[in-house]
């Protein structure tokens, strides 16, 4: 061996956290990157748009049903002559906040329930899964209509109602992942290393179960926005704030007169949810180790 010629030095792999690799993968997905940019723009518009634009969305500024572009109103005016641009901008805020908050609520409930059920198995699992099934059997929209109808259409209540009806999917996914991962040897290894149940659940298993949960939560933000739109459309909403769904709902009566008052907020929802879904898809591909290994 001593006389053997030396080999070129082996390249040492850089220590890159999985998140960096995921970003690398994500960047390759052009649709997802474009969607992310759109999404960021929408969020920025929601945060800064109303202040920058200046017009009070509730102010009647012009003749009703002025079409987009006419009379200096980019998106036209609604049935009270309010500026649709201002409405869309404030609506973005409410719709996004509800989307995020409701998704958080359901992720919180879903992950807790799913984690406990998947980790402890046995009676705990039985009981929790029966509860999950109970909520699954309830028709979601009807149930949330009942909640909102009964306890008032305030934003927190709407958010809560949406969260309460949509956590079951997260719970199932979390449980499935926990069931799968808890059987993997590294969990046993952690146990052999003396890790407590709490640590196993939240430090070992949960981080590894996050991928599908994140993807699902991303989709749920979109779902919640749609859900709120549905409730608003039915009139179950807080009239003191504007959301996109509500713009559609209250302008629906006038579609024959001015279809744009319905189409524009519809497009806003559509583009936002589409962007969220595309980002979710991108995340899915980026975080999926199966795809990364190739």
């Amino acid at each position: 061996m001593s006389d053997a010629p030396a080999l070129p030095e082996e390249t040492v792999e850089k220590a890159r956290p999985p998140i960096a690799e995921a970003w690398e993968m994500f960047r390759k997905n052009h649709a997802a990157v474009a969607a992310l940019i759109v999404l960021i723009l929408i969020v920025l518009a929601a945060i800064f748009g109303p202040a920058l634009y200046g017009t009070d969305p509730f102010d009647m500024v012009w003749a009703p049903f002025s079409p987009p572009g006419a009379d200096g109103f980019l998106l036209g005016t609604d049935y009270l002559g309010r500026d649709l641009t201002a409405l869309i901008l404030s609506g973005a805020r409410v719709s996004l906040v509800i989307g995020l908050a409701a998704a958080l609520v359901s992720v919180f409930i879903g992950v807790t329930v799913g984690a406990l059920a998947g980790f402890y198995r046995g009676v705990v699992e039985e009981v929790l899964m029966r509860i999950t099934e109970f909520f699954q059997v309830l028709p979601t929209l009807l149930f949330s209509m009942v909640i909102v109808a009964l306890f008032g259409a305030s934003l927190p209540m709407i958010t809560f109602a949406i969260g309460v009806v949509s956590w079951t999917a997260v719970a199932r996914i979390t449980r499935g992942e926990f069931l799968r991962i808890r059987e993997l040897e590294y969990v046993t290894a952690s146990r052999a290393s003396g890790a407590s149940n709490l640590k196993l659940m939240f430090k070992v298993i949960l981080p590894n179960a996050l991928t599908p949960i994140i993807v699902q939560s991303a989709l749920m933000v979109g779902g919640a926005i749609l859900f709120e739109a549905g409730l608003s459309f039915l009139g179950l909403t807080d009239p003191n704030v504007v959301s996109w769904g509500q713009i559609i709902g209250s302008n629906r009566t006038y579609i024959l007169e001015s279809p744009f008052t319905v189409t524009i907020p519809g497009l806003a929802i559509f583009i936002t949810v589409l962007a969220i879904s595309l980002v979710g898809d991108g995340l899915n591909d980026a975080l999926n180790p199966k795809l990364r290994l190739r």
Partner: protein
Amino acid sequence: MGDLLNVENLSVRFEVKRGGAFGKKSYLQAVDDISFALKQGETLAIVGESGSGKTTAALAVARLVNAWRGKVMLDGQDILPLEGAALLKARRRVQFIFQDPYSSLNPRQRAEAIVKEPLDSLSDKPEAEKQEIVARLFKAVGLRPEQQRLFPHQFSGGQRQRIGIARALATQPELIICDEPVSALDVAVQAQILNLLRRLQKEFGLTYLFISHDLGVVQHMSDSIAVMYMGKIVEHADRISLFSNPLHPYTVALLSAVPSVDKTRRAATKRILIPGDPPDPINPPKGCRFATRCPVAQERCRETPPPLREVRPGHRIACHLVDESAVSPLA
């Protein structure tokens, strides 16, 4: 020297449900009343077919599944009833190396964190010292220091297994349980790991409970061998006795089934094919578990289970058909 590990009448059973969540409960006795002892610094191998209960027995010894009955004495102290701090102390002494180098490392931890985890949970050493230990371990298992910062997926299978070994060594355990540590590896890499394990054993005076289904590996690694069939130890002997004079029909068949490059061996052994598959572990046969496939089974084999008894010094066997003369019924 006394026995480091003494397993007495260990049984493990799992609850299995058939026919949905509300189906009838039944039990699968994965490990059925096994006893063995292991001296400090030695290697006991457990061999047997897939599903014979090797892993389960090992996990029970390491307190990673709950034993149903029996005792696991570590230096004379039964570790099964231990809880809390005492359990953590026992964990420090018994560590585990897993079969699958891919699933046994947490993909979200860096290599150093994986190796350090047992120290974090089981010892109260200062951080600096822990890091020092980790660095030493990396060296001991033949990994480069800069690889500490990598994530598992950036390693090859053999390297991953080295991380697993380093982790097992972290708390300076006395007993290491190796559950098929090389069966997922390529033959070339397998040799590296086996050599490493033997080197470490000598260096640190480790005791191994070594599980494998590869008889070649077992022959190479162990000092004594226990053969399991459907949750029971059917034969237990030192290395030389077992390989040169296997007694139980199952052991004999198992040994004969191994293909070999060794021409003389091929010429010498007559292949004994045992027909069929192991019976349903939930409803095992009531007599000898092997009776359904045994070429020489008799009526009493099907009726009464044979006890495991010593027929020669250090050679225990559970077969009705082997008498004091210690001749295999298949011979």
